[in-house]
């Protein structure tokens, strides 16, 4: 047998031959040079940024402390007010019967849904009963003042502007990579538009005009001084949940959310060597992008608990993961679907590969449809047009979609109305009726305010026609609009940036989109004051609900598709010598067919979280690390002291222990690149 030493020298020789033979392409530099763009950051400005960053961190810490103190006071007052109107037997209607897993108790829902899933679904069980929490329904929202605002200042700095110029040059210049000495007003406007959308914030027309003029005068190098107040937002900032004192507010309630777009958007930024705008980061969507390995659900929804000491603080904070998995449905056993595609073919869709990503996605979708499904196609630019009336002929649909041609302005409202009209005409009670909007989200004609469309969409969702949205194209992508539309339409919202992602969203995941297994799904945790000092729900800021809304079935919450998982992370501060009983977690949802309400609950015990981080499961450690990454990216006041390198190292260790990491490894490598490039650091 050959000793390793000789094999090693053989390898060395072989690789040395390889070195002689493997040469970079001779035109490497010629290919590269035109793509280089201006240097990203001038060293002098970099120092300035470092200083500003330090000041910002200090400011946020002060703001965080003040807000937490203020919140406790507010919550305490409200709690006193509430406790006078709410009797202690709020949960008296629970009866213990074991369903699903051992620790879970089914709850008899003797106040069935106030709404039914679809107009024709009437069952004797769905008589309307007064909500249990009617007595407190008018109380002031306890958590409304509790969010910590990230300072509402967008820094449209020279780095963002230069990056935008780099993006725009191939479009505006005759192939050159230097900023032209003379740029036109249109070119300047385009640069500003791109720079603003890269920063993730909006600006007023006056501010835009000022910057345009400065660009035209070649006076843009000091734009870092232009701190621009937040006005209209592309990415809306929902703030950061604070720690809540259990003695003041023991109950945390939120709506489940299976959206993932925020992560895909962030990945696009990281991939291009940039950090995503803080306001674009929704922690829950970062977490929920990744598959969890929860055991298959037995009921429509099952819950899973795991916890450990947090590696991101040294004051004994615990991390608690609340996972929910939905029952899986075989793709061949899902209900037939009536789908109407509403496709944005406005001029902006011709940028980059947006329209081809849309086509790619739809072809994948058509491939996963089967006999009994129908598909219709509506396109909209300046006006909406029916391109294909709903048909089972998928080849016809393919040929219609392959002919898409972007042109004109964006009348999303007309497109959606026409789409819903088609879906309504083709409505079938026994099928899944779904409108899917594919757009870069820029609606510049018609009602561009989300509010105008939203009410109608809620109506359709109540009538059993759901709306999901798919965003494409980073840039002037309007995140808020698409998320809100899907939210109202009881559908889901995803973002596609690559052909692979298009195939995932509209291929692999399509059963989960079309086959809803739980409607208006909510999670509630009630912590035991004797054991838990305070808690913080990390993420779900725009999904939080009032305590009494948990059992109010008229409240719109998350729709969960077959096989979907939803995960929430809590940070807990426990009391010394805490009792083993930390509290209770409850899940509640409506059956999509009958509208009947289901509820189950289980205890959370200290022994389930009492372990060092390193002893927790790889998946738990990975999820915790993703949470921490998102917290750092969104500049959460609770993570300013945490070293990004430490977070990446916990992530790397978790990835190393996962069974077959793929997208997990991709995130790790993107973060490593960000660290190498110096864009992800806390100094």
């Amino acid at each position, binding site marked *: *047998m*050959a000793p*390793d030493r*000789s*094999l*090693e020298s*053989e*390898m*060395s020789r*072989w*690789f040395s*031959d*390889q*070195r002689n*033979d*493997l*040469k*970079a*392409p001779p035109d*490497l*530099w010629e*290919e*590269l*040079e035109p*793509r*280089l*763009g*201006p*240097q*990203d*950051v*001038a*060293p002098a400005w*970099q120092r300035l940024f470092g200083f500003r960053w330090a000041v910002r961190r200090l400011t946020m810490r002060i703001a965080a402390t003040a807000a937490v103190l203020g919140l406790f006071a507010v919550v305490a007052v409200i709690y006193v007010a509430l406790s006078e109107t709410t009797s202690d037997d709020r949960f008296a209607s629970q009866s213990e019967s074991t369903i699903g897993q051992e620790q879970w108790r089914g709850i008899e829902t003797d106040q069935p849904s106030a709404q039914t899933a679809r107009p024709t679904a009437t069952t004797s069980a769905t008589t309307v009963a007064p909500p249990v929490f009617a007595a407190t329904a008018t109380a002031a929202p306890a958590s409304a003042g509790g969010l910590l605002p990230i300072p509402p200042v967008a820094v449209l700095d020279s780095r963002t502007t230069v990056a935008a110029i780099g993006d725009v040059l191939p479009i505006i210049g005759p192939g050159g990579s230097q900023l032209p000495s003379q740029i036109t007003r249109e070119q300047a406007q385009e640069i500003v538009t791109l720079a603003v959308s890269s920063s993730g914030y909006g600006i007023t027309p006056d501010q835009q005009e000022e910057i345009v003029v400065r660009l035209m005068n070649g006076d843009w190098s000091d734009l870092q001084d232009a701190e621009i107040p937040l006005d209209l937002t592309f990415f809306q900032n929902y703030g950061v949940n604070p720690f809540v004192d259990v003695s003041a507010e023991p109950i945390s309630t939120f709506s489940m959310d299976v959206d993932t777009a925020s992560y895909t958007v962030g990945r696009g930024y990281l*991939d291009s*060597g940039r950090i995503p705008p803080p306001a674009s980061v929704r922690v829950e969507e970062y977490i929920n992008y990744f598959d969890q390995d929860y055991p298959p659900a037995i009921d429509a929804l099952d819950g899973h608990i795991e916890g450990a000491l947090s590696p991101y603080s040294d004051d004994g904070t615990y991390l608690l993961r609340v996972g929910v998995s939905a029952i899986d449905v075989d793709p061949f056993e899902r209900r037939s679907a009536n789908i109407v595609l509403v496709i944005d073919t406005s001029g902006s869709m011709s940028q980059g*590969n947006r329209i*081809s*990503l849309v086509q*790619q996605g739809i072809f994948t979708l058509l491939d996963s449809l089967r006999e009994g499904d129908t598909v219709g196609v509506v396109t909209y630019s300046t006006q909406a047009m029916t391109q294909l009336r709903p048909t089972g002929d998928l080849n016809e649909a393919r040929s219609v979609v392959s002919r898409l041609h972007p042109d004109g302005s964006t009348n999303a409202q007309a497109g959606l109305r026409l789409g819903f009209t088609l879906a309504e005409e083709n409505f079938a009670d026994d099928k899944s009726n779904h409108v899917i909007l594919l757009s870069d989200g820029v609606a510049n004609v018609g009602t561009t305010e989300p509010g105008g469309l939203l009410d109608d969409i809620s109506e359709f969702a109540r009538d059993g026609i759901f709306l999901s949205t798919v965003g494409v194209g980073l840039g002037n992508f309007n995140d808020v609009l698409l998320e809100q539309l899907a939210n109202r339409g009881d559908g889901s919202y995803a973002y596609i940036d*690559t*052909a*692979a992602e298009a*195939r*995932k969203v509209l291929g692999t995941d399509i059963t989960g989109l079309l086959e809803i297994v739980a409607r208006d799904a909510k999670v509630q945790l009630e912590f035991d004051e004797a054991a838990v000092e305070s808690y913080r729900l990390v993420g779900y800021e725009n999904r939080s609900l009032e305590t009494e809304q948990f059992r109010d079935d008229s409240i719109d919450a998350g729709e969960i598709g077959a096989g979907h998982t939803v995960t929430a992370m809590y940070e807990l501060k426990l009391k010394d010598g805490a009792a083993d009983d930390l509290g209770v977690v409850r899940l509640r949802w409506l059956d999509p067919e009958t509208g009947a309400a289901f509820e189950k609950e289980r205890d959370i015990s200290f022994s389930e979280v009492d372990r060092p981080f390193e002893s927790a499961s790889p998946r738990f450690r990975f999820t915790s690390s993703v949470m921490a990454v998102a917290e750092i990216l969104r500049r959460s006041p609770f993570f300013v002291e945490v070293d990004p390198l430490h977070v990446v*190292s916990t992530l*790397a260790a978790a990835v190393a222990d996962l069974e077959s990491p*793929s*997208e997990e*490894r*991709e995130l*790790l*490598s*993107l973060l*490593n*690149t960000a660290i*190498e*490039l*110096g*864009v992800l650091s806390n100094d």
Partner: protein
Amino acid sequence: MDETDVVIECQQGNRDAFRYIVETYGDTLFGTAFLMTRDRAAAEDIVQSSLLLAWKGIPRFKAGTNLKAWLVRILVNQVMSQRRRKQHSQSPLDAAATRPATTVDGLEAVLESERQQEIQAALYTLDDRTREAIVLRYFAEMSIKEIAQTLKWAEGTVKSRIHRGLASLRTHFDATAPSLVMALEE
């Protein structure tokens, strides 16, 4: 002009200085990417995107530290982040995005001898992570410490991976290529 000066020139936006870096390390980067992906077009894309990122990031690179290791780190991260996208079968879009393939001259020429083919084949029986460590060690000629920093592993892990990789190559040769084992024993 020493490398620190070249880096400082790059940081001030001097493209000629960056060209020097590209020409100095282009072959190592390309070869490493090729050995990791076994796909010439993919390796070319990865080298291009890594160098673009390096140009963007060089203002924040600390001049005087190990430039080659930094470039290889960026490259390895690009290999990993593109691997997932390649896993989902090549799409018409991806194909359209890549340039027309240059003539496949390298691979065949490289694999003249039978033994080299065997080594190449054996190398691709290793799992990705082990192969990466071995390529970095013997092709990119990086130290154990540099590999540890690049792959974010402990040094001990790098050593044991390489050791296990070599052992598994030996097993592979034992099973499939007795002639090679004999050759090695000579």
